C-alpha cells in the first residue's frame, strides 16, 4: 500500500495546509483510501470551498419554491400538485478533453439529478461556448459536443427544446458545456437524499463500477496545461441506454414507498453520494466494497471509491423491501446489490475482504471541509465611449444588418438543433429557435417555458451589471412567449478563484444575480459553480449561465416571435437610448471592445415585463420578441425571417444617430405585433403604466424597408442569417 505523505496529498490536489488539517482532525495520518476520500470531498467541485460564503447571498426563497439549493435539484410548485424539478450543471473540463463523452455524460448527469428526486425528465436545454471560429480546435469541439448532447438525450427520449451557442476567443482553451434538465413530479411524491433510520440497507443500482472517471472531480478543480491529453482517462464514458433503463426502473420503484433516500453517483461517485446521504441524515454509513458490482477485475477500494462510472445510484431502502426492489431492477437488467447499512457511528466505515480499511467521521468530510474567503478585486465601471460621426461615415445600415445577422454569435443555429430530438414525448409546442422552449404538462392545459442565457462580454466589462443583465434576459425570454417567470438555476463558470480578478468577477456577478432575482421575485433554486476554467494562465470571461423557468396556465395563450399578419402595427416597447458600448455592433462593425455594458433598471424590467404579460394574456398582441444582442433591427429581422414577412420601418423620431437607435443594446425592451383594432387599448395600457414605446412600423410583404436606408428582400436577410454555421461546418 502506498505510504501517504504530504507530496502524495499534493498529487491528489490537496494543499499543504489542507493535508495538515486532515492529519490534525483525524489525529493520525490517513491511509491512501482515506486520503482519496478527503481529496474527493475537499476539492473545489464538491466542497464549494471558494464560493460557499458568497452563494449564501443568493436570493433563494419564494412562494412557489418547494426546494431551494442544497438538494440534487431545485423544485417549484406549478399548481394542482404538479411540481417542476430543475437544475443546470457544467461539464466544461471533460468536454474540452473529450467533447463527445464529456458533453454526453454532462447531459446524463443532470438528468439523473432530476429523476433522483422522483421526476420524469420532460425537457433538456444546453448552453455551449466555444473559442474563436478560426481557432484550430473549435470545429471539432463543436461537432463533438453537439453529437454528444444529441447522442445521449436522443437515446433517452427527452426533447432538447432550447439552447444557446456562443463563440469568443476567451474560450479557446476552455470550452463551456452547461446542461439543464426539467422534470415533472407530483409534489407529494418527491424523493430526497437525506438518509434516515438505523440499520437500513444501502443499495447500489445501475451500471457496474469501472476504472473510468477516476479523479474526475479533482480534474475539474484545477486549471489546464500542455498535458491535457494525458487527462483523457479522467473523462467518464456515457451509456444512455443504461440510463434509460435506470430512469424507468427508479420511477417504477418510486411508485411504491420503499425508498428512504436516493442519490445519484455523480462527481466523486460512491464517495460523495454516501457521505452526503449520511451527512444530511446525521448518521453513519458502513459500506462493504467487496459487494460493489465491478466491471473490471481486482479493482482496489481506492479505485472503487473514486470511480465516476456513470448511470449508478445509491439508495437507502426500507428494511424488508430488498426483494421487491431487486425484482424491478432485474426486470430492467440492472445491477442491484446490498452494499452496506446506515449506522449510529456518524462515521463512514469501509470494509473490504472482511477487514475495515477506512474510517472517517462524516463531519470532517462535510461540515469541516475548508471554506475560503478569498481575496477579490472590484471591477470599476469603464468610461462610456464617445462615438462621433466619423465612426459611422463609411457604413450603410443594410450592410451592417446583414453582417450582424450572419455573424457567428447571431446567426441561426439550426445545424445544431436539427441534431437534437426536440419533439419526442409529443408535448413540445415551442421548438428551438424562439425566445424560450415550451413543453406542455402532459394531459393538462398548462405548459412550462424554459430558456438558458449568458452574456460574458457584459459580465467581463462590469460583473455586477452583467450578473443583473443575465437574470433580466432570462426573465424577458420567458415573458416573450407568454410565461410567468417563476425561478432560475445558475451555472457559474469562472476562471481561477485564487486570482483576485477572477474571484472578484465571481463575487460581483453573484451580487448582480442576487439583486436582480430578488427584485424580480425570480429566486435561484439550484445551480453549480465551475472554477478553474483556465489554460496556461489564460482564463475565460466570467460566464454565469442562467436557466429560467416560467409557467403558462393555458398553453393556447402562448405566443411566438414570427410576424403573423400584413397590416399589423409593430411597436418597440421600452426606451431606446442607443447604448452601443459592448454591443455586437461595436464589436463586429466598429471593432471596439471597450466601454460599459448597458445599464439595468430593475423597476423598468419588472414594470414592462408584467405589462407585456398582461397584453399577451388579454390577447392584444400576436407576436413578441425581446430586444437583445444586435438591437432593434436584428430583433425585428428575425421576426420577419421566421414569419416570412416584411416590415415598413418608420424613421426614428428625434434621434440623430440611426446606428445607435437600430443597433444599440439598451435593456428592458420588446418588439410586439399589434392588430390595428387593438392599438387603442394597447396604448392605454402602456400609458397607464408610464411605459415608453415607439411605433416602429407596419408589416408588409417580402421586404424590409426604411426610407432611403434599407430595401432588403426577406430571402436576402434569411440567407445571411441561416447559412453561416452550415457553411462553417462544411455542409
Amino acid at each position, binding site marked *: 500500500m502506498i505510504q501517504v505523505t504530504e507530496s502524495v496529498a499534493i498529487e491528489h490536489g490537496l494543499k499543504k495546509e489542507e493535508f495538515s488539517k486532515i492529519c490534525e482532525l483525524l489525529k493520525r495520518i490517513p491511509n491512501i483510501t482515506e486520503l482519496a476520500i478527503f481529496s474527493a470531498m475537499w476539492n473545489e467541485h464538491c466542497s464549494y470551498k471558494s464560493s460557499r460564503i458568497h452563494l449564501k447571498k443568493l436570493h433563494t426563497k419564494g412562494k412557489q419554491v418547494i426546494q431551494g439549493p442544497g438538494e440534487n435539484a431545485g423544485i417549484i410548485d406549478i399548481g394542482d400538485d404538479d411540481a417542476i424539478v430543475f437544475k443546470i450543471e457544467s461539464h466544461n473540463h471533460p468536454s474540452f478533453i473529450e467533447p463527445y463523452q464529456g458533453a454526453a455524460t454532462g447531459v446524463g448527469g443532470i438528468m439523473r439529478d432530476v429523476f433522483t428526486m422522483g421526476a420524469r425528465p420532460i425537457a433538456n436545454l444546453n448552453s455551449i461556448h466555444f473559442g474563436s471560429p478560426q481557432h484550430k480546435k473549435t470545429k471539432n469541439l463543436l461537432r463533438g459536443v453537439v*453529437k454528444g448532447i*444529441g*447522442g445521449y438525450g*436522443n*437515446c*433517452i*427520449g427527452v426533447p432538447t427544446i432550447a439552447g444557446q451557442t456562443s463563440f469568443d476567443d476567451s474560450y479557446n482553451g476552455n470550452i463551456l458545456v452547461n446542461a439543464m434538465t426539467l422534470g415533472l413530479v407530483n409534489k407529494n411524491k418527491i424523493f430526497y437524499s437525506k438518509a434516515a433510520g438505523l440499520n437500513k440497507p444501502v443499495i447500489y443500482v445501475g451500471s457496474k463500477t469501472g476504472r473510468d472517471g477516476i479523479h474526475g472531480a479533482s480534474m475539474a478543480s484545477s486549471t489546464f496545461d500542455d498535458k491535457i491529453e494525458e487527462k483523457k482517462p479522467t473523462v467518464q464514458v456515457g*451509456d*444512455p*441506454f*443504461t440510463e*434509460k*433503463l435506470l430512469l424507468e426502473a427508479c420511477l417504477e420503484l418510486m411508485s411504491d414507498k420503499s425508498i428512504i433516500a436516493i442519490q445519484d453517483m455523480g462527481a466523486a461517485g460512491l464517495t460523495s453520494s454516501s457521505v452526503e446521504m449520511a451527512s444530511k441524515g446525521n448518521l453513519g454509513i458502513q459500506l462493504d466494497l467487496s459487494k460493489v458490482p465491478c466491471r473490471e477485475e481486482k479493482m482496489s477500494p481506492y479505485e472503487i471509491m473514486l470511480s465516476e462510472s456513470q448511470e449508478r445510484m445509491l439508495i437507502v431502502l426500507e428494511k424488508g423491501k430488498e426483494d421487491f426492489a431487486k425484482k424491478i431492477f432485474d426486470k*430492467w*437488467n440492472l445491477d442491484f446489490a446490498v452494499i452496506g447499512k446506515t449506522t449510529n457511528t456518524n462515521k463512514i466505515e469501509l470494509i473490504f475482504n472482511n477487514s475495515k480499511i477506512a474510517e472517517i467521521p462524516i463531519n470532517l468530510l462535510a461540515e469541516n471541509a475548508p471554506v475560503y474567503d478569498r481575496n477579490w478585486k472590484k471591477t470599476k465601471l469603464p468610461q462610456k465611449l464617445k462615438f462621433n460621426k466619423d465612426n459611422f461615415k463609411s457604413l450603410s445600415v443594410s450592410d451592417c444588418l446583414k453582417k450582424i445577422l450572419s455573424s457567428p454569435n447571431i446567426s441561426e443555429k439550426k445545424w445544431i*438543433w*436539427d*441534431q*437534437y*430530438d*426536440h*419533439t*419526442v*414525448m*409529443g*408535448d*413540445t*409546442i415551442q*421548438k428551438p429557435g424562439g425566445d424560450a422552449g415550451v413543453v*406542455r404538462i402532459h394531459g393538462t392545459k398548462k405548459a412550462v417555458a424554459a430558456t438558458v442565457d449568458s452574456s460574458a462580454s457584459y459580465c467581463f466589462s462590469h460583473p455586477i451589471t452583467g450578473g443583473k443583465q443575465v437574470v433580466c434576459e432570462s426573465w424577458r425570454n420567458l415573458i416573450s412567449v407568454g410565461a410567468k417567470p417563476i425561478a432560475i438555476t445558475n451555472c457559474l463558470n469562472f476562471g481561477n478563484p485564487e486570482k483576485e480578478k477572477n474571484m472578484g468577477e465571481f463575487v460581483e456577478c453573484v451580487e448582480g444575480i442576487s439583486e436582480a432575482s430578488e427584485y424580480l421575485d425570480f429566486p435561484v433554486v439550484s445551480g453549480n459553480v465551475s472554477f478553474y476554467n483556465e489554460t496556461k494562465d489564460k482564463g475565460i470571461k466570467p460566464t454565469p449561465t442562467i436557466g429560467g423557468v416560467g409557467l403558462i396556465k393555458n*398553453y*393556447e395563450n402562448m405566443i411566438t416571435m414570427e410576424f403573423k399578419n400584413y397590416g399589423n402595427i409593430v411597436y418597440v416597447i421600452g426606451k431606446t437610448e442607443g447604448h452601443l458600448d459592448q454591443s455586437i455592433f461595436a464589436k463586429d462593425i466598429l471593432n471596439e471592445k471597450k466601454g460599459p455594458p448597458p445599464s439595468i433598471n430593475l423597476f423598468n424590467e419588472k414594470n414592462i415585463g408584467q405589462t407585456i404579460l398582461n397584453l399577451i394574456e388579454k390577447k392584444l398582441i400576436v407576436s413578441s420578441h425581446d430586444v437583445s444582442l444586435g438591437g432593434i433591427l436584428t430583433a425585428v429581422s428575425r421576426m420577419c425571417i421566421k414569419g416570412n414577412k416584411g416590415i415598413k420601418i418608420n424613421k426614428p423620431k428625434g434621434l440623430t444617430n440611426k446606428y445607435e437607435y437600430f443597433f444599440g443594446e439598451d435593456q428592458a425592451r420588446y418588439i410586439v405585433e399589434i392588430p390595428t383594432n387593438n392599438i387603442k387599448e394597447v396604448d392605454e395600457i402602456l400609458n397607464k403604466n408610464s411605459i415608453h414605446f415607439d411605433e416602429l412600423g407596419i408589416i408588409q410583404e417580402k421586404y424590409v424597408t426604411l426610407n432611403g436606408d434599407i430595401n432588403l428582400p426577406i430571402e436576402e436577410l434569411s440567407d445571411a442569417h441561416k447559412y453561416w454555421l452550415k457553411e462553417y461546418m462544411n*455542409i
Partner: protein
Amino acid sequence: MNSSVIIFPGSNCDRDMDVALNKFGFKNKMVWHNDQSIPRSDLIVLPGGFSYGDYLRCGSIASKSKIIRSVIDFANSGGLVLGICNGFQILTETGLLPGILQQNKYLDFICKNVFVKVKDKKNKYFNNIKKDILELHIAHNEGNFFCTEEELKTLEDNNQIAVTYCNSEGLENEDNNPNGAINNIAGIFNKNKNVLGMMPHPERMIDKYLSGEDGSLFFENLLGNLK
C-alpha cells in the same frame, strides 16, 4: 378496435404512440418484450426509440427478442403490423420487410418536419386519405434505406413503396431527401401490405399545437378500416 404497442428496453416513443392510438379511438395495450404472447389485437405497433441501445445494428437485438415470434406469426396470418422509425429498423431485421436502414448520408441525427408522397393507396394504411402529400416529422440517425436492385425492382413492381420524401409540391429529388435513402424511400410494405415500416413519426403530428396534424389523417384512416 384493439391495438398493442410492444415495449423493448430502450423504446422511447412507446408513450407517444399510446397517446395517439387512444386519441383516435383504439383500445391500446402495452406489451413487454419479454412476454410470450400478445393480447388479441387488430394492430401491433413497434414504436421508435433505441431498442437495446441499438449498440449492435439498429433493431437487430430486438428482432431476436422473446415477443417477436408472436409478431411474426401475427404478420404472417395477415394482421396489421406497423413499425415506426426504430420499429421499421426492427421489421427489416426480422425479415418481414426487405432492405436495411443505414446511417444518414451526412452522418448526423436529423430532427425536422418533412413532406412525404403517398405512393400507394390500395392498402389499409393510406386508402382513404385524400391528400397525396403529407407533412410528417422525422427524428433519426439511421434512416437511410437501402436494398439490392432486385429487391428494389420487386418493391416497385408490387407497389410496395409506401411513402417517399419530397417537397411540399411532391417533387422527389435529392434536395428533398434528408438521409440519402435509395429512391427517396421513407416507408415500405411487405407483399401483402399488412406490414408497414416507415421512418417518419405520424404520432408526433396529431395536434395543431405540435408540428402539424397530418398524422391525424393517418390514424383516422387506420381506425376507419378496422371498424
